[in-house]
């Protein structure tokens, strides 16, 4: 394996974030259309508020199908209602192997990459699998 590689080499900097006020049906449309399983929720200043979860979305939709909530109520739910507010961040200069170990120990597949407290990108477990796969013969 060549290296050493840093998180920065595999960070996705061209990612999109949800605004806190994005509605849940809009969130789900984006997740489905983009084929992704979660996204970072950030405010206008780039402050990370949480990570949207597919599971939390499914729970709300299921509430509608089980008659516990109306479609109108679902339509008014926001990204902040389907996010994990607690999350781990990854430093941009962390080594790829160290980052891989973090991903093996957390239930998330997507973490925000920060430098001096500012959101600069995101990295997914998939980015790391691709990264390591590429540099192993």
């Amino acid at each position: 394996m060549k290296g050493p590689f840093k998180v920065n080499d595999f960070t996705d900097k061209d990612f999109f974030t949800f605004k806190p006020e994005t509605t849940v049906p809009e969130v789900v449309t984006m997740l489905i259309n983009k084929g992704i399983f979660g996204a970072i929720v950030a405010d206008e200043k780039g402050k990370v508020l949480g990570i949207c979860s597919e599971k939390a979305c499914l729970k709300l939709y299921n509430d509608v199908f089980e008659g516990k909530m109306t479609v109108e109520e679902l339509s008014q739910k926001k990204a902040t209602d389907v996010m994990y507010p607690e999350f781990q961040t990854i430093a941009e200069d962390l080594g790829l192997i160290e980052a891989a170990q973090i991903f093996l120990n957390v239930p998330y597949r997507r973490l925000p990459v920060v430098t001096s407290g500012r959101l600069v990108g995101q990295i997914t477990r998939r980015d790391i699998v691709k990264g390591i796969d590429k540099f192993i013969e």
Partner: protein
Amino acid sequence: MNDIPTVAEFMDKEFTKLSPELPLKEAVNILIKKQLLAALVVDNNETLVGILSEKDCLKILLQKAYSQRPWGMVKDYMHEIPAAAMPSEMPATEAASILIGHKSRRFPVVENGKLVGQITRRDLLRGMHTQLFGQDK
């Protein structure tokens, strides 16, 4: 909502199956190329023998990064199916409740004991979203 759909309506019948004898390197490439988070492992008799996830692949790639260990086959790294298969006539709401409470996002679907498909959290979310808001909201 009165008409609760069944698992059969939302399940995926044309899903990717991996052979237990497939070299792991090829399996990793399939997961990356098809953007899959995991795939069911099915033998020649169409019997479900395991599941290979992105996390399983990350573990072996990490080991490969440290040692010259040879690539094995899918069967060497797959894990056991974490839960019993779902019958195709199960109501989608019940399936959703199981998937919400479970770590695994993918369940095999059976009819009379025969594997007929798989259902993921994404399939249920997409199916419910389409029923509530239409195809291209």
